[in-house]
């Protein structure tokens, strides 16, 4: 029984966390979903991992896509000016 449980039902935390990450992008199989559901009922660390990674994804989407990282370095002004000049030069020739 134990061997079968381990082979077909039980996920390790490594496998569970991997499925949790995959789930955000790709559908899991019915069996994977069942295994994951069972694992999360029994495993507090993975349940927290699940919530925290969802939060991380929301933060990434919200900030990265809209370019809202205020602390991200930006181009130096002289470099911007140079690029603008290059582009204008090319457009007029």
């Amino acid at each position, binding site marked *: 029984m134990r061997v079968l449980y381990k082979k077909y039902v039980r996920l390790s935390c490594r496998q569970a966390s991997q499925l949790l990450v995959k789930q955000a992008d790709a559908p899991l199989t019915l069996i994977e979903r069942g295994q994951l559901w069972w694992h999360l009922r029994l495993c507090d660390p993975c349940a927290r991992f699940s919530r925290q990674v969802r939060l991380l994804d929301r933060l990434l989407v919200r900030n990265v896509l809209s*370019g809202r990282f205020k602390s991200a*370095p930006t181009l130096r002004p002289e470099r911007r000016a140079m*690029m603008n000049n290059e*582009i204008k030069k090319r457009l007029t020739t």
Partner: protein
Amino acid sequence: MVQLEPEQWVDRYADSLFGAALLQVKDEAVADDLVQETFMAGLTARHTFRGQAQERTWLVAILRNKINDYFRGQTRRPTVSLDDAFYDGYFDRDDDGNLDHWLPDKSPGDWGETGEPDESEALNDVLYACLSKLPPRYAQVITLKFLENINPADICKDLDISPSNYWTLVHRVKILLRECLERNWYSNQ
């Protein structure tokens, strides 16, 4: 139909393209050059622009190629070993030697679940610092995925990796970023 407006490119896209390039190549001078090359290549190719894509998407595609060329030209291409050594830093092993539970000091801690993500600028700063600490290969995957919203199949093509390697990379990036947020934000709250 979308029209290209090259005179606006620097104002509209220079900083965000620069930010994306910098996370991946880790060098401001290189990122500068890549953005400039992207604009120049865009000008040269502007007659091929057919207006189906957004201007930004079109420039991002050029930048992706430039970044790939840059890494291809490097003597040491960014690679990460995909063996289990990484996971041994996070999970213990069971009696059969398979990776199993979270190691006690790596186990996801209680963040005092608040529901909605914190909006504060300080949290954004921490997240940005965590992103910029990622090794190039991980940074590439996450920038393509979130910054450029590229689909997994195209990311695999870009990075020349199999889908299963892609999932492994994404899994590791999430483990690293989650841990970094916990260390630098949630444990100081």
